[in-house]
């Protein structure tokens, strides 16, 4: 693969009109619109999937067998089928199942809903591992001290859970940054799609590398922020 890419990379750089700094910034400028779309998708997905994941996690841990089974089924479907398929179902499903006419605006909502539903399943399992990592003794101490169930969760379990789950959550968030490129399955134009389009027009793969650089920088920022958070949560160890 690399052997294939490198010579073509060199030739595309050697074309004078496609190697200058001006051209490079031109590509960045064009990509920035897609970058914004990717960023919005990223932020909104996190905003909705994280609390939703907590709900799914509660359902998964429910005393009621039926609720637990539903949550298990949900998680297995969301983790066991391709995200791209889920996006297609969320977007086209309303029409093909209920004959609801779709508006173009719905592309955006469908992308957010699809991503949030999918990531909620992953977050639910991460939360669950975090909750289960809190020793039983913590619950017993809270019980003897008279904390209610809700107090025990909010004051004792949740803060400890957050610390346990930060590393896997970081992983998931980084994956999400890159997964945003899947949104084009339902014609949600994000950065990578733009990069492919520019690449097709200009007959060079440079825009794809620029996009790659964008993702990399984005993820550097994410890793750095999560690292800071992890450090902050490490006040006790």
């Amino acid at each position, binding site marked *: 693969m690399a*052997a294939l890419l490198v010579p073509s990379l060199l030739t595309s750089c050697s074309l004078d009109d496609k190697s200058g700094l001006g051209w490079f910034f031109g590509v960045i400028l064009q990509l920035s619109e897609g970058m914004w779309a990717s960023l919005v998708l990223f932020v909104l997905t996190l905003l*909705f999937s994280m609390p939703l994941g907590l709900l799914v996690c509660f359902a998964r841990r429910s005393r009621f067998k039926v609720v637990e089974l539903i949550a298990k089924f949900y998680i297995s479907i969301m983790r066991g089928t391709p995200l791209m398929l889920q996006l297609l179902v969320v977007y086209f499903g*309303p029409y093909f199942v209920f004959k609801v006419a*779709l508006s*173009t605006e719905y592309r955006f909502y469908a992308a957010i809903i699809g991503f949030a539903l999918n990531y909620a399943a992953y977050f639910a399992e991460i939360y669950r591992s975090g909750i289960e990592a809190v020793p039983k003794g913590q619950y017993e101490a809270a019980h003897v001290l008279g904390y209610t169930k809700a107090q025990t969760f909010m004051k004792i379990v949740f803060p400890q859970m957050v610390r346990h789950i930060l590393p896997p959550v970081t992983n998931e968030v980084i994956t999400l940054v890159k997964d945003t490129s899947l949104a084009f399955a339902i014609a949600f*134009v994000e950065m990578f799609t733009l990069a*492919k389009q*520019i690449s097709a027009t200009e*007959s060079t793969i440079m825009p794809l590398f620029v996009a790659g650089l964008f993702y990399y920088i984005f993820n550097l920022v994410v890793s750095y922020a999560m690292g800071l958070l992890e450090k902050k949560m490490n006040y006790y160890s």
Partner: protein
Amino acid sequence: MKKTLALLLAVAMIITAVPFVFSGCGSSDKSGSKADTATTTLTVGFDAEFPPYGYKDEKTGEYKGFDLDLAAEVCKRNNWELKKQPIDWDSKDMELNSGTIDCIWNGFTINGREDDYTWSVPYIDNSQVVVVGKSSDIKSLADLKGKTVAVQSDSSALAALTGDDATKENKKLAASFKELQQIPNYETALLNLESGAVDAVCMDIGVANYKVEASKDKFRLLDDQISSEQYGIGFKKGNTELKDKVEKTLLEMSKDGTVEKIAKEYKLEDALCLGK
């Protein structure tokens, strides 16, 4: 903490409910567009990685191309608003059937899909040709024997070589290759050709001309063609009303020379077959 959580969930629910409200409004517009003269927008679905028919302009960042320019002119003459919707080519049927786009107008091959859509008259004759390196010793289709040949996956060229409707000669030709590689897009296929990973690439003549030109003498075309096929505008099956309107305007544009003028901008004038 609990309050924040509740608030977030509430916001999530409201936002998820909004599109259904929107789509409710949208549906009345849409049914109107299909019904009669009340059409206000024409949503054209296209693959934005398909120059010169539809692509992103490097200078303006706008979507343009031969097909999009034609569509723009058709809309102008009908006093419609044109909405250019780049789509994932693999989802084109879902997009069309669910009504999120009104037509597929994007170097869309009729042959082999005659019964799947309501078609306009063909406007481009698009043959499948073979692109090889400038200094390659391949001169004819026969020289492809034992060579590695690339096509875009799910493309007309692939269908022409190995599809159910492929001719006997083409099937034989494909069988004589050392290997027929499927590559996701033209761009990668040509990169493969340039780097020597494949010996030839089969593709649509329009794209091939554009690419050969843009390559600055890296590639050339074989004189032999694999197949001849035609492009049309695909509408949802049964939507003859919209098809008739677009087609009528297109024919008018052909008569007064507008189509040819636009075709020249994209070096497609040789492939035009409208009104012939």
